[in-house]
């Protein structure tokens, strides 16, 4: 793999669901080593589709996908991609299908060929790293929304991925859990692509911002100085506004 080639490179991608106009058209995207890329995308702009294309769960109708320096076309090419790149789904309910939390987090490592003892150890370690000690025996569907999100993240991180894709990770989180998620993502030393329509989250976390609109991705270069007028209660007292995260 050439040193300067990005981990994930998409070129000229076109994709449309049957019976509808293409949702992605002439899309280029690259994710390099060590960067955190935010993709600001409104609902229905194809952001989930983009992530599914990278994981090989959907195939583009045109264009080229190169991941880890290799062209990826057939199902077999993507098996390696799925082992080495983690995708955190928009709805953790879809990602947590095992009876207990520990089994869910150990599911990936077991599939990677680890022994039961190793898989359980990795799962426990990952849960602990996310501050989820004591969750091992809990039942997946009885967790709260925020807990589910963190456990789903643990389930992906337990596979020790080399890059992480996140689909609206802030969705349905309260302020505290959101803060914890931001901390966890900031500490992770792997490249991440975060797709969201939450500007605050993306500006707080990401080195580079892109927008996904009208089927293609555009760079958002530079910052625009601007000012908001706003009203709220107690606005006449001295106060500060912090950025979330």
């Amino acid at each position: 793999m050439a040193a300067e080639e990005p981990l994930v490179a998409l070129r000229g991608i076109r994709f449309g669901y049957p019976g509808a106009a293409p949702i992605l058209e002439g899309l280029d995207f690259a994710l390099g080593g060590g960067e955190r890329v935010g993709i600001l995308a409104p609902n229905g702009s194809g952001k989930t589709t983009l992530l599914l294309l990278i994981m090989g769960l959907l195939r583009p109708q045109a264009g080229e996908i190169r991941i880890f320096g290799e062209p990826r076309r057939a199902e077999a090419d993507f098996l390696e991609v799925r082992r080495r790149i983690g995708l955190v789904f928009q709805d953790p309910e879809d990602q947590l299908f095992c009876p207990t939390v520990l089994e869910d987090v150990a599911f990936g490592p077991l599939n990677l060929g680890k022994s039961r003892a190793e898989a359980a150890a990795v799962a426990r370690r990952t849960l602990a790293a996310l501050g989820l000690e004591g969750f091992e025996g809990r039942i997946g569907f009885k967790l709260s929304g925020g807990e589910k999100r963190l456990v789903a993240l643990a389930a992906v991180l337990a596979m020790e991925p080399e890059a992480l894709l996140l689909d609206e990770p802030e969705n349905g989180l309260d302020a505290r859990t959101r803060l914890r998620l931001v901390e966890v993502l900031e500490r992770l030393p792997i490249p991440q692509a975060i797709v969201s329509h939450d500007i605050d989250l993306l500006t707080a976390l990401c080195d580079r911002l892109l927008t996904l609109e009208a089927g293609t991705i555009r760079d958002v270069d530079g910052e625009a100085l601007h000012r908001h007028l706003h009203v709220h209660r107690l606005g006449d007292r001295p106060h500060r506004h912090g950025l979330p995260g």
Partner: protein
Amino acid sequence: MIPAPPVEGGDAPGGIDPRVRLAAAIGFSAATAAWQRPAGILAALGFALGLAAFFRLSPRPLLRRLLAANGFVLLLWAIVPFSLPGEALVRLGPLAASREGLALALAITLKSNALVLALLALVAPLPFPAAGHALHRLGVPGKLVQLLLLTWRYLALLEQEFHRLRRAAALRGFRPRTDLHTYRTFAWLLGMLLVRSVDRAERVRRAMLCRGFRGVFLSLHEFRLTRRSLAFAAAAAAAVVASAWLELAG
């Protein structure tokens, strides 16, 4: 930090291996279903009562569940004695209850109570995941166990989704009646539930593929046969053999 309560009772409630519990339940059910003679049936009932005592089932919920099961048995009493030909014991107008019919109804009553008791003692306390994995170890095909566990996992979600849809309908003034509009609305609700479930299944499949799923469900569960479990297995086997002896000799 949110406190995480432990799973009730752990994987082996009462200290008995889930595989032993399931195997005992299967063996006991097969034997009880087969026995015809009073001695065999009474032995089975005695064994089931022994199980309930051994696992210290609390009487109140036990009685409630037995009562529910005996509702069906009551129906049998209304039909079986009058439909089996034989020596008439009781006459109700044109209907005659036969001795054979009454004996059969009694046998069914005793058997079904023995079975319900035994299942409540052996199977009901098992945590669902442990039961699934134990079934797998006992030779039930992996795909069936997967279906069972995924069904259990997503049933609650389906129910939630159904209630959401119903609430949405109720909020727009829908009240179920006995008319075409009601039937159509429920058909739509069920159809929508089905469509959402298929969608959900596809997303779950994708999530599984993303985590390296290759068609085989690997499990973390490891069961250990403790001495207590082995002793229990031996005692259960002995009890079933004893009831067989009573059945065949009596």
